[in-house]
């Protein structure tokens, strides 16, 4: 963030963004539910050029055992970028400070969404692997992980989605890609519970007035309708036979 002014590319041409989008337009999102067999639940997501796998294991026995909570499940979460995920050089493997922080705030999103008291004394693990990153990976990862959790059958209050809003010049713009992310001054990733619009993840840095922050939240909630719809489509698709209508086959 807050990258250099050196060789700063033009981010808006004729009122459109570099990839032709409007300011309030999402990139294309496609989710495939349950692509992995071994995991209790999984999802594969393509969001613009982001390619992300999310998987869930558990509820299973807590390891190490002394961490077990007899009243609820404990949650573990790992967000990680693959060493080959970025256009720049080979990344170091293992979590860096950024990934550690993201893993923590993502975990807190799902501590809210999952009904942990349904599984006392157990552990649930969420893995988010960024195979290819193009800006907004934490938002995309959360969106995928929510679908993975649903396919695992783990009880949840809601299916959270996430998206980021940034600022290009004086204008707010939805869903930054990597170039916009690198050369803009503000970025606000958010995760939201669609049933009541409660904000479960909110991070921001840059320069925004409070009015712009309020508008950013509204833009995220608006975009959430499209993201939620794709999450639902991916889940329902699992249970539809090829060539059949959206309704289940009648007896």
């Amino acid at each position: 963030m807050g990258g250099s002014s050196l060789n700063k590319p033009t981010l808006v041409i004729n009122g459109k963004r570099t990839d032709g989008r409007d300011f309030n337009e999402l990139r294309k999102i496609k989710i495939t539910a349950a692509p992995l067999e071994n995991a209790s639940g999984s999802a594969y997501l393509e969001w613009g050029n982001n390619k992300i796998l999310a998987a869930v294991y558990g509820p299973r026995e807590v390891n190490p055992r002394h961490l077990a909570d007899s009243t609820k499940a404990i949650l573990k979460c790992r967000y990680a970028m693959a060493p080959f995920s970025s256009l720049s050089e080979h990344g170091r493997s293992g979590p860096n400070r950024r990934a550690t922080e993201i893993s923590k705030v993502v975990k807190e999103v799902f501590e809210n969404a999952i009904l942990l008291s349904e599984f006392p004394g157990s552990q649930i693990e969420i893995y988010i692997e960024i195979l290819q990153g193009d800006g907004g990976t934490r938002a995309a990862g959360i969106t995928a992980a929510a679908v993975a959790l649903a396919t695992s059958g783990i009880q949840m209050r809601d299916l959270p989605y996430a998206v980021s809003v940034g600022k290009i010049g004086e204008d707010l713009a939805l869903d930054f890609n990597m170039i916009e992310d690198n050369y803009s001054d503000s970025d606000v990733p958010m995760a939201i519970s669609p049933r009541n619009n409660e904000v479960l993840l909110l991070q921001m840095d840059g320069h925004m007035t409070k009015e712009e922050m309020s508008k950013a939240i509204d833009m995220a909630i608006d975009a959430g309708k499209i993201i939620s719809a794709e999450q639902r489509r991916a889940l329902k698709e699992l249970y539809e036979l090829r060539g059949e209508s959206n309704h289940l086959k009648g007896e």
Partner: protein
Amino acid sequence: MEAMDIVEANYIKEIIAKGLRDDGRKAMDYRNIKVTKGVLGNAEGSAQVELGMTKVLAGVKLSIEEPMDDTPNLGNFMVSAELLPLASENYETGPPSPESIELARVVDRGIRAGNCIDLESLLIEEGKVWTVFADIYVLNYDGNLFDAASIAVMSALADTKVPKVENGEAKREERSAKLKLNNIVSSCTFGKFNNTILLDTNASEEKAMDGRITIATDGKAIRAIQKGLKGGFFKNEIEDAMNIALEKHEFLKGVITGE
């Protein structure tokens, strides 16, 4: 959580629901804040902050390093945090915990996004810049580490003097120029308890806290936000928090600059 902690958390939630706090404060009151600058001689800048019984020390060291590839004319800034085992029975020795990394990165983001340090003034010569290392040492935990650490680092930066450079090397005995600051950023951290929001939570309140939100401002704009813990916030609650953080800025700026 231990059984005693659950009992305490329930008690705290009960009194908060009655509109009270266990140390008698109002919802949007800070505890007493005391800043002491220049507490360490060898560091280029330092400050100790007492926020109620929370004690945080920040030390600043400057090193001559190469600039980043994409910012050849700018100095660097880096914040780290240590939750020392001597600060709480719950802190352990070992690699940095997610909590300490989050603390350091949130403090870093506010100061960086606020352009507080004049990074251009840190260019020594081509290929040589100062890197500013700010280390947060938590000495005693009594809640709200985010604001205490933010005040400590800002105050230590305000206390920092840049060493002289001779033949491309730092001459640390001679410090003359003050580190040039362009902006002061202050941080306000709120806790959420069911539907109640409180500023500057203490340790016992944090046992009962559902959600946390930190807002860093320079009095005009919002510079950084971090929502933490599992509890969510509604839009109007975030807006209220932003308003209070903007209002409190002048007071906190005075605490940091000592004016």
